[in-house]
Protein backbone atom coordinates (compact mmCIF):
# COMPACT_ATOMS: atom_id res chain seq x y z
CA UNK A 1 0.00 0.00 0.00
CA UNK A 2 2.72 2.48 1.03
CA UNK A 3 6.31 1.87 -0.08
CA UNK A 4 8.98 4.24 1.15
CA UNK A 5 12.27 3.73 -0.62
CA UNK A 6 15.52 5.45 0.39
CA UNK A 7 13.86 8.79 1.07
CA UNK A 8 16.12 11.71 1.99
CA UNK A 9 15.22 15.30 2.68
CA UNK A 10 17.24 18.39 3.49
CA UNK A 11 16.32 21.81 4.83
CA UNK A 12 19.19 23.72 3.27
CA UNK A 13 22.30 22.03 4.63
CA UNK A 14 20.47 20.20 7.38
CA UNK A 15 19.42 16.66 6.62
CA UNK A 16 16.08 15.79 8.23
CA UNK A 17 15.55 12.40 6.59
CA UNK A 18 18.36 10.05 5.67
CA UNK A 19 17.75 7.05 3.43
CA UNK A 20 14.48 6.06 5.03
CA UNK A 21 12.97 2.85 3.70
CA UNK A 22 9.95 0.95 4.96
CA UNK A 23 6.54 -0.14 3.83
CA UNK A 24 3.01 -0.42 5.12
CA UNK A 25 0.97 -3.28 3.70
CA UNK A 26 -2.78 -3.32 3.36
CA UNK A 27 -4.42 -3.72 6.75
CA UNK A 28 -1.21 -3.14 8.64
CA UNK A 29 -0.92 -0.70 11.53
CA UNK A 30 2.56 0.77 11.73
CA UNK A 31 3.51 2.97 14.66
CA UNK A 32 6.37 5.44 14.19
CA UNK A 33 8.06 6.64 17.36
CA UNK A 34 11.24 8.36 18.38
CA UNK A 35 12.51 11.46 20.16
CA UNK A 36 11.35 14.88 19.01
CA UNK A 37 13.26 16.20 16.04
CA UNK A 38 13.93 12.69 14.78
CA UNK A 39 12.00 13.30 11.55
CA UNK A 40 8.92 11.16 12.18
CA UNK A 41 6.39 13.91 11.45
CA UNK A 42 8.34 14.96 8.40
CA UNK A 43 8.37 11.39 7.13
CA UNK A 44 4.63 10.95 7.50
CA UNK A 45 4.00 14.30 5.78
CA UNK A 46 6.10 13.11 2.85
CA UNK A 47 3.72 10.19 2.36
CA UNK A 48 0.93 12.42 1.06
CA UNK A 49 3.23 15.04 -0.40
CA UNK A 50 2.63 17.77 2.17
CA UNK A 51 6.41 17.89 2.49
CA UNK A 52 8.56 17.53 -0.61
CA UNK A 53 11.62 15.28 -0.47
CA UNK A 54 14.78 15.44 -2.57
CA UNK A 55 15.81 11.83 -2.97
CA UNK A 56 14.21 8.39 -3.01
CA UNK A 57 10.65 7.46 -3.82
CA UNK A 58 7.33 6.96 -2.09
CA UNK A 59 4.68 4.86 -3.80
CA UNK A 60 1.13 5.00 -2.46
CA UNK A 61 -1.37 2.60 -3.99
CA UNK A 62 0.86 2.28 -7.06
CA UNK A 63 1.25 6.05 -7.54
CA UNK A 64 4.56 7.85 -7.07
CA UNK A 65 4.17 10.80 -4.68
CA UNK A 66 7.36 12.55 -5.75
CA UNK A 67 6.60 12.44 -9.48
CA UNK A 68 5.83 16.01 -10.60
CA UNK A 69 3.20 14.59 -12.99
CA UNK A 70 1.23 12.99 -10.16
CA UNK A 71 -2.14 14.52 -9.44
CA UNK A 72 -1.45 15.14 -5.75
CA UNK A 73 -4.93 16.41 -4.78
CA UNK A 74 -6.42 13.20 -6.17
CA UNK A 75 -3.94 11.03 -4.32
CA UNK A 76 -4.41 12.98 -1.08
CA UNK A 77 -8.17 12.60 -1.28
CA UNK A 78 -7.65 8.84 -0.94
CA UNK A 79 -5.31 9.07 2.06
CA UNK A 80 -6.79 10.39 5.28
CA UNK A 81 -4.67 12.47 7.60
CA UNK A 82 -5.14 13.48 11.22
CA UNK A 83 -3.03 16.26 12.72
CA UNK A 84 -1.63 17.05 16.13
CA UNK A 85 -3.68 20.26 16.38
CA UNK A 86 -6.85 18.78 14.87
CA UNK A 87 -7.09 21.50 12.20
CA UNK A 88 -10.84 21.50 11.91
CA UNK A 89 -11.95 24.52 9.92
CA UNK A 90 -13.06 26.93 12.67
CA UNK A 91 -15.35 29.01 10.45
CA UNK A 92 -17.48 25.99 9.53
CA UNK A 93 -19.89 23.98 11.66
CA UNK A 94 -19.04 20.36 12.49
CA UNK A 95 -21.42 19.17 9.76
CA UNK A 96 -19.88 21.52 7.21
CA UNK A 97 -16.43 20.34 8.22
CA UNK A 98 -17.51 16.78 7.49
CA UNK A 99 -19.23 17.58 4.18
CA UNK A 100 -17.03 20.18 2.49
CA UNK A 101 -14.40 17.92 0.95
CA UNK A 102 -16.90 15.18 0.13
CA UNK A 103 -18.84 17.66 -1.99
CA UNK A 104 -16.02 19.77 -3.42
CA UNK A 105 -13.42 17.05 -3.97
CA UNK A 106 -15.36 13.82 -4.46
CA UNK A 107 -18.36 15.47 -6.10
CA UNK A 108 -20.92 13.87 -3.81
CA UNK A 109 -24.33 15.44 -3.44
CA UNK A 110 -24.98 17.48 -0.32
CA UNK A 111 -27.52 14.89 0.86
CA UNK A 112 -25.16 12.00 0.42
CA UNK A 113 -22.31 13.86 2.10
CA UNK A 114 -24.56 14.87 4.96
CA UNK A 115 -25.72 11.32 5.54
CA UNK A 116 -22.20 9.95 5.44
CA UNK A 117 -20.93 12.71 7.72
CA UNK A 118 -23.61 12.15 10.34
CA UNK A 119 -23.12 8.40 10.25
CA UNK A 120 -19.40 8.85 10.99
CA UNK A 121 -20.09 11.49 13.60
CA UNK A 122 -22.35 8.99 15.31
CA UNK A 123 -19.61 6.42 15.11
CA UNK A 124 -17.18 8.65 17.01
CA UNK A 125 -19.95 9.36 19.50
CA UNK A 126 -20.56 13.00 18.67
CA UNK A 127 -23.85 13.06 16.81
CA UNK A 128 -25.25 15.62 19.25
CA UNK A 129 -22.53 18.12 18.31
CA UNK A 130 -23.35 18.28 14.60
CA UNK A 131 -24.57 21.88 14.62
CA UNK A 132 -21.80 23.25 16.82
CA UNK A 133 -18.58 24.94 15.74
CA UNK A 134 -15.10 23.49 16.38
CA UNK A 135 -14.30 26.20 18.92
CA UNK A 136 -17.17 24.95 21.06
CA UNK A 137 -15.81 21.40 21.39
CA UNK A 138 -13.10 20.02 23.66
CA UNK A 139 -9.79 18.96 22.18
CA UNK A 140 -10.66 15.28 22.32
CA UNK A 141 -13.99 15.89 20.64
CA UNK A 142 -12.35 17.99 17.95
CA UNK A 143 -9.85 15.25 17.23
CA UNK A 144 -12.61 12.66 16.94
CA UNK A 145 -14.41 14.93 14.48
CA UNK A 146 -11.14 15.27 12.57
CA UNK A 147 -10.91 11.49 12.32
CA UNK A 148 -14.52 11.33 11.13
CA UNK A 149 -13.77 14.04 8.57
CA UNK A 150 -10.89 12.00 7.17
CA UNK A 151 -12.95 8.80 7.16
CA UNK A 152 -15.76 10.51 5.26
CA UNK A 153 -13.52 10.48 2.20
CA UNK A 154 -13.45 6.65 2.28
CA UNK A 155 -9.65 6.61 2.51
CA UNK A 156 -7.57 3.58 1.56
CA UNK A 157 -5.15 4.41 4.37
CA UNK A 158 -4.94 6.78 7.32
CA UNK A 159 -1.98 8.83 8.48
CA UNK A 160 -1.89 10.05 12.08
CA UNK A 161 0.60 12.75 13.02
CA UNK A 162 0.84 12.75 16.83
CA UNK A 163 -2.94 12.75 17.20
CA UNK A 164 -2.93 12.80 21.01
CA UNK A 165 0.07 15.04 21.79
CA UNK A 166 -1.99 18.20 22.16
CA UNK A 167 -4.64 16.62 24.36
CA UNK A 168 -5.27 16.63 28.08
CA UNK A 169 -4.57 13.20 29.58
CA UNK A 170 -8.28 12.56 30.13
CA UNK A 171 -9.04 13.04 26.48
CA UNK A 172 -6.28 10.89 25.08
CA UNK A 173 -8.17 7.68 25.62
CA UNK A 174 -11.33 8.74 23.84
CA UNK A 175 -9.23 9.38 20.74
CA UNK A 176 -7.16 6.22 21.13
CA UNK A 177 -10.35 4.18 21.48
CA UNK A 178 -11.55 5.41 18.10
CA UNK A 179 -8.15 4.65 16.57
CA UNK A 180 -8.04 1.19 18.12
CA UNK A 181 -11.46 0.38 16.76
CA UNK A 182 -10.37 1.57 13.34
CA UNK A 183 -7.25 -0.60 13.48
CA UNK A 184 -9.27 -3.65 14.49
CA UNK A 185 -11.55 -3.11 11.52
CA UNK A 186 -8.57 -3.55 9.25
CA UNK A 187 -7.79 0.05 8.28
CA UNK A 188 -4.27 0.54 6.96
CA UNK A 189 -2.67 3.00 9.36
CA UNK A 190 0.60 4.80 9.83
CA UNK A 191 0.71 6.53 13.21
CA UNK A 192 3.32 8.84 14.61
CA UNK A 193 2.69 8.60 18.33
CA UNK A 194 4.26 8.21 21.72
CA UNK A 195 1.36 6.13 22.99
CA UNK A 196 3.18 2.87 23.56
CA UNK A 197 0.08 1.30 25.07
CA UNK A 198 -1.71 1.85 21.80
CA UNK A 199 1.27 0.44 19.92
CA UNK A 200 1.28 -2.68 22.10
CA UNK A 201 -2.44 -3.16 21.58
CA UNK A 202 -2.83 -2.76 17.85
CA UNK A 203 0.46 -2.19 16.04
CA UNK A 204 1.67 -4.74 13.52
CA UNK A 205 5.10 -3.14 13.42
CA UNK A 206 6.91 -0.38 15.21
CA UNK A 207 9.42 1.93 13.55
CA UNK A 208 11.89 3.81 15.70
CA UNK A 209 13.52 6.90 14.26
CA UNK A 210 16.44 8.99 15.43
CA UNK A 211 18.31 11.82 13.68
CA UNK A 212 16.33 11.34 10.49
CA UNK A 213 17.10 7.65 10.21
CA UNK A 214 14.95 4.60 10.68
CA UNK A 215 16.96 2.90 13.39
CA UNK A 216 14.61 0.04 14.10
CA UNK A 217 11.79 -1.47 12.09
CA UNK A 218 10.46 -4.54 13.81
CA UNK A 219 7.37 -6.52 14.68
CA UNK A 220 5.58 -5.29 17.77
CA UNK A 221 6.65 -8.15 20.04
CA UNK A 222 10.21 -8.01 18.88
CA UNK A 223 10.34 -4.24 19.36
CA UNK A 224 8.98 -4.28 22.88
CA UNK A 225 10.72 -7.54 23.78
CA UNK A 226 14.22 -7.12 22.50
CA UNK A 227 15.00 -4.08 20.40
CA UNK A 228 18.24 -4.44 18.43
CA UNK A 229 19.56 -0.93 18.65
CA UNK A 230 20.90 0.60 21.80
CA UNK A 231 19.16 3.90 21.01
CA UNK A 232 15.75 2.21 20.89
CA UNK A 233 16.47 0.37 24.13
CA UNK A 234 17.32 3.65 25.79
CA UNK A 235 14.20 5.30 24.44
CA UNK A 236 11.97 2.47 25.58
CA UNK A 237 13.51 2.31 29.03
CA UNK A 238 12.83 6.02 29.43
CA UNK A 239 9.24 6.08 28.32
CA UNK A 240 8.11 2.74 29.69
CA UNK A 241 9.15 3.53 33.25
CA UNK A 242 5.75 4.86 34.18
Amino acid at each position, binding site marked *: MIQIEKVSKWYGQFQVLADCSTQVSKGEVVVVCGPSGSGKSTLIKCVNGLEPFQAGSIIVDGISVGDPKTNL*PRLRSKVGMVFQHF*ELFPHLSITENLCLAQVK*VLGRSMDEAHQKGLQLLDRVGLKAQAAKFPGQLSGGQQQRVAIARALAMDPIAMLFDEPTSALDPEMINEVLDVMTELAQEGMTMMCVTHEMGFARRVASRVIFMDHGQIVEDAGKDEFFGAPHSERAQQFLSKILQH
Partner: protein
Amino acid sequence: MTINLDWGIFLQESPTGDGPYWTMLATGLQWTLATALTGWAIALLVGSIVGVLRTVPYRPLALLGDAYVEVFRNIPLLVQLFFWFFVWPELLPAEIGRWMKQDMPYPEFITAALGLGWFTAARVAEQVKSGILSLPRGQKNAALALGFSLPQTYRLVILPQAFRVVIPPLTSEFMNIFKNSAAALAIGLTELTFQMKQMVEYSNEVIVSIAAATVLYMMLAFAVNRGMAWLEKKARVPGMIGGGR
Protein backbone atom coordinates in the same frame (compact mmCIF):
# COMPACT_ATOMS: atom_id res chain seq x y z
CA MET B 1 -15.31 90.29 18.16
CA THR B 2 -18.42 88.76 16.78
CA ILE B 3 -18.60 86.18 14.11
CA ASN B 4 -21.56 86.37 11.85
CA LEU B 5 -22.60 82.97 10.68
CA ASP B 6 -25.31 82.81 8.07
CA TRP B 7 -26.71 79.30 8.41
CA GLY B 8 -29.42 80.17 5.94
CA ILE B 9 -26.85 80.40 3.17
CA PHE B 10 -27.59 76.85 2.00
CA LEU B 11 -30.98 77.91 0.71
CA GLN B 12 -29.68 80.89 -1.25
CA GLU B 13 -29.14 80.64 -4.97
CA SER B 14 -25.49 80.24 -5.92
CA PRO B 15 -24.16 82.48 -8.68
CA THR B 16 -23.05 79.40 -10.66
CA GLY B 17 -26.62 78.87 -11.79
CA ASP B 18 -26.76 75.35 -10.38
CA GLY B 19 -29.45 76.14 -7.85
CA PRO B 20 -29.09 76.86 -4.13
CA TYR B 21 -25.81 76.24 -2.31
CA TRP B 22 -27.00 73.00 -0.69
CA THR B 23 -27.30 71.36 -4.11
CA MET B 24 -23.68 72.29 -4.73
CA LEU B 25 -22.64 70.27 -1.69
CA ALA B 26 -25.07 67.50 -2.55
CA THR B 27 -23.47 67.09 -5.99
CA GLY B 28 -20.09 66.99 -4.29
CA LEU B 29 -21.32 64.36 -1.87
CA GLN B 30 -22.59 62.24 -4.76
CA TRP B 31 -19.23 62.31 -6.53
CA THR B 32 -17.42 61.55 -3.31
CA LEU B 33 -19.69 58.57 -2.72
CA ALA B 34 -19.40 57.32 -6.29
CA THR B 35 -15.61 57.69 -6.35
CA ALA B 36 -14.99 56.15 -2.96
CA LEU B 37 -17.35 53.20 -3.48
CA THR B 38 -16.07 52.40 -6.97
CA GLY B 39 -12.51 52.79 -5.71
CA TRP B 40 -13.27 50.49 -2.78
CA ALA B 41 -14.68 47.79 -5.05
CA ILE B 42 -11.50 47.94 -7.13
CA ALA B 43 -9.32 48.02 -4.00
CA LEU B 44 -11.00 44.95 -2.50
CA LEU B 45 -10.77 42.93 -5.69
CA VAL B 46 -7.22 43.90 -6.68
CA GLY B 47 -6.01 43.98 -3.08
CA SER B 48 -7.31 40.48 -2.37
CA ILE B 49 -5.68 39.07 -5.48
CA VAL B 50 -2.36 40.79 -4.75
CA GLY B 51 -2.50 39.79 -1.09
CA VAL B 52 -3.07 36.16 -2.02
CA LEU B 53 -0.30 36.21 -4.64
CA ARG B 54 2.17 37.34 -1.99
CA THR B 55 1.54 34.16 0.02
CA VAL B 56 1.51 31.51 -2.73
CA PRO B 57 4.42 29.06 -2.95
CA TYR B 58 5.44 30.28 -6.43
CA ARG B 59 8.21 32.84 -6.13
CA PRO B 60 7.63 34.85 -9.32
CA LEU B 61 3.98 35.45 -8.41
CA ALA B 62 4.88 36.39 -4.84
CA LEU B 63 7.50 38.84 -6.12
CA LEU B 64 4.97 40.35 -8.51
CA GLY B 65 2.61 40.93 -5.57
CA ASP B 66 5.40 42.44 -3.49
CA ALA B 67 6.37 44.76 -6.34
CA TYR B 68 2.79 45.99 -6.68
CA VAL B 69 2.59 46.89 -3.02
CA GLU B 70 5.99 48.60 -3.02
CA VAL B 71 5.09 50.80 -5.99
CA PHE B 72 1.56 51.78 -5.04
CA ARG B 73 2.16 52.22 -1.34
CA ASN B 74 5.35 54.25 -1.59
CA ILE B 75 4.17 57.01 -3.94
CA PRO B 76 1.90 59.79 -2.64
CA LEU B 77 -1.70 59.44 -3.73
CA LEU B 78 -1.68 62.93 -5.22
CA VAL B 79 1.33 62.10 -7.39
CA GLN B 80 -0.37 58.89 -8.51
CA LEU B 81 -3.52 60.77 -9.50
CA PHE B 82 -1.48 63.35 -11.45
CA PHE B 83 0.37 60.50 -13.14
CA TRP B 84 -2.79 58.70 -14.30
CA PHE B 85 -4.47 61.92 -15.35
CA PHE B 86 -1.68 63.84 -17.08
CA VAL B 87 1.17 61.43 -17.85
CA TRP B 88 -0.41 58.06 -18.56
CA PRO B 89 -2.39 59.16 -21.67
CA GLU B 90 0.87 60.50 -23.16
CA LEU B 91 2.60 57.13 -22.72
CA LEU B 92 -0.11 55.18 -24.53
CA PRO B 93 -0.37 54.82 -28.29
CA ALA B 94 -1.46 58.18 -29.73
CA GLU B 95 -4.96 57.01 -30.65
CA ILE B 96 -5.83 55.76 -27.20
CA GLY B 97 -4.19 58.74 -25.52
CA ARG B 98 -6.25 61.12 -27.61
CA TRP B 99 -9.43 59.23 -26.81
CA MET B 100 -8.67 59.37 -23.11
CA LYS B 101 -8.06 63.10 -23.21
CA GLN B 102 -10.97 64.06 -25.47
CA ASP B 103 -13.71 61.47 -25.59
CA MET B 104 -13.55 59.32 -22.47
CA PRO B 105 -16.70 60.00 -20.43
CA TYR B 106 -16.23 61.45 -16.93
CA PRO B 107 -12.43 61.45 -17.19
CA GLU B 108 -11.88 62.96 -13.72
CA PHE B 109 -14.21 60.45 -12.08
CA ILE B 110 -12.79 57.40 -13.87
CA THR B 111 -9.21 58.43 -13.20
CA ALA B 112 -9.92 59.22 -9.58
CA ALA B 113 -11.82 55.97 -8.93
CA LEU B 114 -9.13 53.83 -10.57
CA GLY B 115 -6.24 55.74 -9.04
CA LEU B 116 -7.77 55.64 -5.59
CA GLY B 117 -8.66 51.97 -6.05
CA TRP B 118 -5.16 50.91 -7.08
CA PHE B 119 -3.57 52.96 -4.30
CA THR B 120 -5.89 51.47 -1.66
CA ALA B 121 -5.46 47.99 -3.14
CA ALA B 122 -1.83 48.02 -2.02
CA ARG B 123 -2.95 48.69 1.52
CA VAL B 124 -5.72 46.08 1.35
CA ALA B 125 -3.18 43.58 -0.01
CA GLU B 126 -1.00 44.20 3.03
CA GLN B 127 -3.94 43.50 5.36
CA VAL B 128 -5.06 40.40 3.45
CA LYS B 129 -1.53 39.03 3.48
CA SER B 130 -1.15 39.53 7.21
CA GLY B 131 -4.57 37.94 7.74
CA ILE B 132 -3.50 34.87 5.79
CA LEU B 133 -0.18 34.63 7.63
CA SER B 134 -1.93 34.91 10.98
CA LEU B 135 -3.67 31.56 10.46
CA PRO B 136 -2.08 28.35 11.75
CA ARG B 137 0.02 26.70 9.02
CA GLY B 138 -1.78 23.45 9.68
CA GLN B 139 -5.02 24.79 8.21
CA LYS B 140 -3.52 24.84 4.75
CA ASN B 141 -2.03 21.37 5.24
CA ALA B 142 -5.35 20.02 6.49
CA ALA B 143 -7.17 21.38 3.45
CA LEU B 144 -4.55 20.03 1.05
CA ALA B 145 -4.58 16.65 2.81
CA LEU B 146 -8.32 16.37 2.14
CA GLY B 147 -7.59 16.69 -1.57
CA PHE B 148 -8.42 20.35 -2.16
CA SER B 149 -6.43 22.06 -4.89
CA LEU B 150 -4.48 25.18 -3.87
CA PRO B 151 -7.14 27.56 -5.28
CA GLN B 152 -9.86 25.62 -3.43
CA THR B 153 -7.77 25.72 -0.27
CA TYR B 154 -7.63 29.51 -0.47
CA ARG B 155 -11.25 29.98 -1.45
CA LEU B 156 -12.87 27.55 0.99
CA VAL B 157 -10.53 27.48 3.97
CA ILE B 158 -7.94 30.25 4.13
CA LEU B 159 -9.69 33.37 2.84
CA PRO B 160 -12.97 32.98 4.78
CA GLN B 161 -10.86 32.93 7.95
CA ALA B 162 -8.34 35.56 6.88
CA PHE B 163 -11.05 38.08 5.94
CA ARG B 164 -12.72 37.64 9.32
CA VAL B 165 -9.41 38.41 10.99
CA VAL B 166 -8.83 41.60 9.00
CA ILE B 167 -12.29 43.19 9.11
CA PRO B 168 -11.14 45.79 11.69
CA PRO B 169 -8.10 47.04 9.70
CA LEU B 170 -10.16 46.91 6.49
CA THR B 171 -12.71 49.16 8.18
CA SER B 172 -9.97 51.76 8.58
CA GLU B 173 -9.05 51.45 4.94
CA PHE B 174 -12.67 51.79 3.90
CA MET B 175 -12.97 54.99 5.94
CA ASN B 176 -9.64 56.21 4.54
CA ILE B 177 -10.79 55.88 0.97
CA PHE B 178 -13.62 58.38 1.61
CA LYS B 179 -11.21 60.84 3.16
CA ASN B 180 -8.55 60.25 0.50
CA SER B 181 -11.07 60.87 -2.26
CA ALA B 182 -10.69 64.57 -1.44
CA ALA B 183 -7.34 64.45 -3.25
CA ALA B 184 -9.29 64.07 -6.50
CA LEU B 185 -10.08 67.78 -6.42
CA ALA B 186 -6.53 68.25 -7.72
CA ILE B 187 -7.52 66.70 -11.05
CA GLY B 188 -10.78 68.63 -11.13
CA LEU B 189 -13.32 66.12 -9.83
CA THR B 190 -16.22 68.12 -8.37
CA GLU B 191 -16.34 66.04 -5.20
CA LEU B 192 -17.27 67.31 -1.76
CA THR B 193 -14.07 69.18 -0.91
CA PHE B 194 -13.98 70.76 -4.36
CA GLN B 195 -17.57 71.94 -3.95
CA MET B 196 -16.84 73.16 -0.46
CA LYS B 197 -14.06 75.35 -1.86
CA GLN B 198 -16.43 76.63 -4.52
CA MET B 199 -18.97 77.53 -1.91
CA VAL B 200 -16.35 79.33 0.16
CA GLU B 201 -15.32 81.37 -2.85
CA TYR B 202 -18.79 82.34 -3.98
CA SER B 203 -20.51 82.83 -0.64
CA ASN B 204 -17.65 83.99 1.55
CA GLU B 205 -19.19 81.91 4.35
CA VAL B 206 -15.93 80.15 5.15
CA ILE B 207 -16.87 78.69 8.49
CA VAL B 208 -20.35 77.58 7.52
CA SER B 209 -19.11 75.93 4.30
CA ILE B 210 -16.31 74.06 5.97
CA ALA B 211 -18.53 73.06 8.87
CA ALA B 212 -21.08 71.61 6.45
CA ALA B 213 -18.45 69.56 4.60
CA THR B 214 -16.97 68.40 7.89
CA VAL B 215 -20.31 67.14 9.11
CA LEU B 216 -20.95 65.34 5.83
CA TYR B 217 -17.53 63.60 5.94
CA MET B 218 -18.09 62.60 9.53
CA MET B 219 -21.47 61.14 8.66
CA LEU B 220 -19.92 59.11 5.86
CA ALA B 221 -17.19 57.77 8.11
CA PHE B 222 -19.71 56.97 10.80
CA ALA B 223 -21.92 55.09 8.33
CA VAL B 224 -18.96 53.04 7.09
CA ASN B 225 -17.90 52.27 10.61
CA ARG B 226 -21.38 51.13 11.67
CA GLY B 227 -21.81 49.11 8.48
CA MET B 228 -18.53 47.28 9.00
CA ALA B 229 -19.34 46.65 12.67
CA TRP B 230 -22.58 45.04 11.50
CA LEU B 231 -20.66 42.92 9.00
CA GLU B 232 -18.17 41.87 11.67
CA LYS B 233 -21.01 40.78 13.91
CA LYS B 234 -22.71 38.90 11.08
CA ALA B 235 -19.48 37.10 10.20
CA ARG B 236 -18.70 36.15 13.77
CA VAL B 237 -18.33 32.44 14.38
CA PRO B 238 -18.85 30.85 17.80
CA GLY B 239 -15.52 29.83 19.30
CA MET B 240 -13.47 31.62 16.63
CA ILE B 241 -11.59 34.93 16.93
CA GLY B 242 -13.70 37.34 18.94
CA GLY B 243 -16.64 34.95 18.77
CA GLY B 244 -16.88 34.62 22.51
CA ARG B 245 -18.06 38.18 23.07
